[in-house]
């Protein structure tokens, strides 16, 4: 019986070492949406497409996020790295390997939009589902711009 118990314990320790890396991975999927849609999205000043857009980002970095849309004010925010609770699994189960591996892979972090005094920046809403981060940005109309017409594609 003792041997079985020891084997289970050993297997758990091996399996649960690098908890966060195994459970979350070193990258995180981020989906960016906007109201209205079709805003141009720039991450670290690199254009990645128009909303809604998805990007798989490394967890151990911080990113600048900028949305631009004609007639609307440019929206700037940051994706910050926060603590990933799966990392505690290493401490709880004594996974010394995980304590070292998770910071190296970046899995000890998770990405979140920047907080101002504990709440998301005005215009940002977000939620996380199965580790995937969904961000929605509400863009404000640029008071300096006025729509004077629209070009229509000829058929």
């Amino acid at each position, binding site marked *: 019986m003792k041997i079985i118990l020891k084997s289970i314990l050993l297997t758990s320790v091996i399996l649960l070492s690098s908890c966060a890396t195994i459970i979350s991975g070193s990258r995180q999927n981020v989906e960016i949406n906007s109201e209205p849609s079709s805003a141009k999205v720039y*991450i*670290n*000043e*690199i254009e*990645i497409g128009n909303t809604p857009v998805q*990007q798989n*980002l*490394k967890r*151990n*970095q911080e990113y*600048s996020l*900028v949305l631009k849309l004609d007639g609307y004010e440019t929206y*700037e925010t940051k994706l910050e790295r926060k*603590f990933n609770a799966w990392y505690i699994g290493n*401490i709880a189960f*004594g996974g*010394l390997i995980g*304590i*070292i591996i*998770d*910071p*190296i*892979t*970046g899995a*000890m972090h998770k990405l979140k939009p920047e907080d101002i005094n504990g709440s998301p920046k005005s215009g940002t809403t977000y939620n996380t589902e199965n580790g995937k981060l969904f961000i929605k940005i509400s863009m404000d109309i640029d008071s300096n711009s006025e729509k004077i017409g629209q070009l229509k594609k000829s058929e």
Partner: protein
Amino acid sequence: MKQMTKMLLLITVIGFTSCSPKISSNLTNPQPKLSIDEKVALLDIEHKLPESIVKVGDLRFQDSGFSTDCSFNSLMTQARNEARKNGANIVKVVDKKKPDLWSSCYRLKIELYKYDGDVSSLTQYKLKLD
């Protein structure tokens, strides 16, 4: 057991605090801050500097020993942010050590310059998302 707990705690603290590379800066001639809309050119070793530029200062990125966020693209992004803060619109890599047996990080020596011309016309490094 107490020692083990202390060790785990120490490693956790190191893990939390030491993931960023060590940045040392020597800003000899800071200029007015640049906005996000103003372009900053990233020049790698092989890219040439234009004429009539003003040196703003130097940056040095080193491995803190526990750095993980130290890819070339990440360091260049951080250098660009430092450049904007100090009014420089050219980031020029003057020395580059690639990851090797001793360090998993890029180690860079960078010079920051202010250029009055159009920086987007310069041949430059195109930043990528890792």
